[in-house]
């Protein structure tokens, strides 16, 4: 077990943790925007999955990972719009809609994937985002290789943390969005278009979820396999709650889950005591424990999950 304490092992572990945290973080940031506006979109699992597939399609057909990432964003945006149409315009139930999107995405991604690449179960390798060492910073001992030898999309996820925080807390748009999520009627009476605000929020949320999917295929694996998202959307949902709907909080939660994931992957290779299936559950068990830990301390947006309808009979 002394292998655990070598510096190489730790650098390796944390660097993988940061890499694995990136898709969770990207999706969680998008979900924070959606939830702060009052929409609980559990369909981000599906958006990640379809985003991952269309990233491969885009990269494969064009030969450029940038086109792949763009396709993923558009895929996510489309799913976000579908979600908004059903829940905001039609007033449908948000949890049911999100679940439907997840089921649809699972079936659709498998179908399209087999249609494109046959039945082998994985695509051929496509052009992807290679690790990009940042000059000077990557030379810092220990820290450098962990944080500054990642791929572009991983950096982007972390750059989005202050960007989303600025949007939410330092712009009038963010203020309107938070008002729509806490007290939509008050927002309405102040001239804010609640429906439009929520459409925009959940579409941005979908875009980031799609982009999170592209991290899986264009930065981690470079191929697509069926159900590649494997519940990461749900872990991102947990990271939102655990991070108290704040971008920085979501970042720490995502890092925690990412490192746990990296750890279980390594334990699988060195431990022959526990079956690997059991080790693979570590991030998920951690998710449950984290959520239990914040029970009673989490203050979600007050109107989260509730449709807003203007014209009701006043007393």
């Amino acid at each position, binding site marked *: 077990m002394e292998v655990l304490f070598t510096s190489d092992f730790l650098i390796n572990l944390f660097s993988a943790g940061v890499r694995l945290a990136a898709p969770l973080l990207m999706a969680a940031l998008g979900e924070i925007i959606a939830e702060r506006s009052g929409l609980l979109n559990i369909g981000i699992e599906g958006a990640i999955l379809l985003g991952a597939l269309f990233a491969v399609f885009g990269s494969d057909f064009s030969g450029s990972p940038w086109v792949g990432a763009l396709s993923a964003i558009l895929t996510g945006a489309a799913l976000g719009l579908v979600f908004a149409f059903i829940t905001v315009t039609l007033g449908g139930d948000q949890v049911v809609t999100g679940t439907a999107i997840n089921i649809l995405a699972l079936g659709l991604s498998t179908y399209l994937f087999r249609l494109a690449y046959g039945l082998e179960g994985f695509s051929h390798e496509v052009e992807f985002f290679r690790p990009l060492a940042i000059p000077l910073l990557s030379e810092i001992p220990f820290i450098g290789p962990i944080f500054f030898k990642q791929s572009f999309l991983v950096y982007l996820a972390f750059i989005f943390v202050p960007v989303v925080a600025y949007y939410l807390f*330092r712009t*009038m748009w963010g*203020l*309107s969005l938070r008002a729509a999520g806490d*007290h939509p009627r*008050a927002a309405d009476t*102040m001239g804010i278009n609640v429906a439009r605000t929520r459409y925009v929020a959940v579409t941005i949320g979908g875009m980031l979820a799609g982009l999170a999917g592209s991290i899986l295929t264009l930065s981690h694996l470079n191929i697509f396999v069926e159900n590649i998202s494997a519940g990461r959307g749900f872990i991102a949902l947990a990271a939102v709650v655990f991070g108290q709907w704040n971008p920085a909080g979501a970042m720490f939660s995502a890092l925690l889950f990412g490192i746990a994931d990296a750890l279980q992957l390594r334990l699988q290779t060195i431990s022959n005591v526990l079956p690997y299936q059991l080790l693979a559950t570590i991030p998920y068990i951690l998710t449950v424990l984290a959520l239990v830990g914040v029970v009673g301390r989490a203050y979600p947006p007050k109107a989260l999950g509730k449709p807003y309808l203007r014209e009701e009979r*006043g*007393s």
Partner: protein
Amino acid sequence: MTTDKIPLLEMREITKRFPGILANDHINFSVYAGEIHSLLGENGAGKSTLMNILYGLVAPDSGKVFVRGKEVRIHSPLDAIDKGIGMVHQHFMLVDRLSVVENVVIGTKPPGYPAFRKEAAVKRISQLIEEYGFDIDALMPVHLLSVGQQQRVEIIKALYRGADLLILDEPTAVLTPPEVVDLFRLLRNLRQAGHGIIFISHKLNETLENSDQITVIRQGKVVNTVLPQNIDRAGLASLMVGRDVLFDLPHPPYSGKQHAVLNIQNLKVLDDRKIEAVKDISIEVCNGEVFGIAGVDGNGQSELVEALTGLRQGTGGKIMLGGVEITGKSPGEILAQGVAHIPEDRQVRGLVMGFRVDENLILHDYGRPPFTRRGLLQHKEIYRWARQRAQDFDIRPPEPRLQARQLSGGNQQKVVLARELTKNPRLIIAVPPTRGLDVGATEYVHRALLDARANGAAVLLVSTELEEVLSLSDTVAVMYEGRIVGTMQRDEIDITRIGLLMGGGHVD
């Protein structure tokens, strides 16, 4: 007032139909700059609908709106704000967790837009706060402000947007007597400055004292527009209700033998934030007595009532009912001891809104015969019983198969009364029992409570409406910051003293 001036606002032939009800029936209404125009009517008369149409929250079926003589179309609050219309809603439209500044600037485009320059906004709004002589910290989250302060934030919100026509929907319902005085002083200043003010109320005295004109609405129609100097309280009330109203119900002293029914000793209760909301309260309520607790909302009344009804555990003290201790018992056990609870919010605690009236009427007793036999609900029996209650308590329409939400507020409260009072309780705990009810329904509820008293029940009345406490109670106690700060008998009531005590003032 001159009639040749162009009104600031004119609403012409406004009509709005909701499913099953004509809420506004060809209403004509105008307001001039520099006047306070009251809109008086019972609940459900159509005042709020009319104002929601004006503010763009509800679309009228027909009718026209003119601002300064020009026809305007108002499709959304944004349109209304653009036309200089501001509204202070009865239930404040404030986002609790946001600060005063954030609440004020929401939806506007301040300098720097789309960035939110907080420091600059704080400066601007602090100036406005100072200009109107308010005592509010612009950076405070609004949920930490008192109700009176929150209302001022609402007014600031409207003025910040340049409103010259201000709608106030039942603004005095939530205020202490001194705060009401302050509010009217502010409104008179705004009138002086040329604002037009629409004051919505169902309280007759304050309407008479503070209006330039009064328009009375009944069942969706304008009954009349009158000048306050040409009418009195009884006249207004009969315009509003459509019949004569008895203000002071007979209140004969209880003749039977008295003994303590409820005895509270040194009760202490924490609120949700784990702060002591009830601090060492001891009171005794006898049969045939109405014991009124006056006080401004949020001084521990809710926690006291929740402790008495078993919804919240006290942290100290004893509660005795007819000599038997009920401290820490469950709500079910306490209700079974002959306690009736007419709760604070009938729509949340009093009734299951999605249930039918007959189902609501058997909420306590559904598990017992004749309502349940062999584990099955006896719908015929339940219906028959509910029909009888609807008749006894004048629930309209008398159809127990309607959902509770389909009834008006007054009739919903009658359902609660029918359920709670039919069992001949020893103790009735009534918390703002007439909140949101109109004059007619209020009279009904008061009568029911006094009848129960005449039959020997003990009544604990908790209300923020001082008039209500004074007219019904044999004993009046004032609650302030979790304590009883003064108690007086019916014959020694001193309104000034009570007003002072409610505001936390000391009386020598």
